[in-house]
């Protein structure tokens, strides 16, 4: 039979090797009561593990980047331009918030009011695109580009590469978004890859974007 130390070791091993649990437990010399106790502790351990395996922070999440959810200084909603476009569309801030909610975004009237009167720096490119759609205004008339914060050299190099513009055009076409939103999205995607600790060179970054765009294009054509 196992002593306390053996049981601690067994539990630690079961936690460390979840895919081998069945095998480990089959060969463990423990009573039914101990087996039940371990099962309960493992269930708790699994719940804790699960709680720590959700989506990464937005800026580190390539999926969020691909969806245009990472705010970008080069595609920043301009407060005054938003206010002008909204009035031109004869909508109230409440109307705009309501229409955004209908598109799935969780914003209230106060959020739209804040974008117009204080700051809209946290509005990501995908939302800028939706606001433009809602107001019937081109994205270019709603944004102002602030100088980018320093990006890693290889991302800057990839951004300046002639191929990048072609990729932006393709992404804009396949996603039905403006070139500004497409460029911001693709740049965020490159940055998220870098944030994940990978160190690809500019050509690799561009090839990776090309593969992503091609996969969406291919599936769209099927």
């Amino acid at each position, binding site marked *: 039979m196992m002593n306390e*130390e053996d*049981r*601690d*070791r067994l*539990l*630690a091993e079961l*936690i*460390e090797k*979840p*895919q081998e649990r069945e095998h480990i437990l089959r060969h463990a010399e423990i009573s039914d009561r101990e087996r039940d106790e371990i099962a*309960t*502790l493992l*269930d*708790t*351990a699994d*719940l*804790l*593990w*699960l*709680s*720590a*395996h*959700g*989506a*990464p922070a937005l800026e580190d*999440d*390539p*999926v*969020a980047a*691909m*969806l*245009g*959810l990472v705010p970008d200084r080069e595609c920043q909603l301009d407060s005054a331009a938003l206010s002008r476009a909204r009035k031109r569309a004869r909508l109230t801030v409440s109307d705009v918030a309501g*229409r955004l*909610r*209908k*598109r*799935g*975004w*969780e914003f209230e009237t106060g959020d739209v009011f804040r974008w117009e009167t204080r700051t809209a720096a946290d509005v*990501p490119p*995908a*939302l800028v695109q*939706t606001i433009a759609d809602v107001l019937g205004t081109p994205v270019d008339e709603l944004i102002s580009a602030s100088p980018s914060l320093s990006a890693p050299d290889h991302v800057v190099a990839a951004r300046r590469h002639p191929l990048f513009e072609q990729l932006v055009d393709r992404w804009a076409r396949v*996603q039905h978004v403006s070139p500004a939103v497409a460029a911001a999205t693709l740049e965020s995607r490159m940055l998220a890859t870098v944030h994940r600790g990978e160190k690809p060179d500019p050509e690799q970054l561009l090839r990776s974007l090309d593969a*992503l765009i091609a*996969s*969406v*294009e*291919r*599936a*769209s054509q*099927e």
Partner: protein
Amino acid sequence: MPVASCASHGTVVMTAVPPDLGALYLRYGDAMHKVAASVLREAGRAAEAGDAVSDAIVSIMASPPKGKVRNWEAFLVTAAKRKALDRVRSAYVRHAGPEFVESAHDRGDGTDIAEDVAADLDQRQRAALAWDCLAILDERHRRAVQETVALERPRSEVAAELGVSPARVSQMTKPALALLREEMNRREGGNDE
């Protein structure tokens, strides 16, 4: 005209134009990652959860659902789960050959995945509760269990940071998990006043 509406419990119920995928991801992306990680963990590939979610999103971007989607959470979570199962399946194919896959992963093609969504939601709610309950542990036990169990850091590293032996970290884990379980039971029993 977009005519989706948001139900009070957070489920987006569609009537015509689908909501933006980005908005949906903000709401349900966390659930997608958790479900994908859970599936892949069984094959020792939890680190690929982000790739499985990315596969799912790319697939939806390219081929948006044609009919009405009544429950976007279930739709997205199921998509992530299927992509995770695809990865598990291809890993088994590489290691054991295709004949092994059929018996080991029937559910990859089964309709029961959608039925699992409710169970997944329950698991995620309980996981959030487990995380909240960490607050009842003292600092050292919390760190031991959080670092080794939740974040899967090697015991030796955590032990060095806590100034104890790896065996001591294992000793600390057990009572910490037991206390967590007790607290969870108490709260789930509705006694959390």
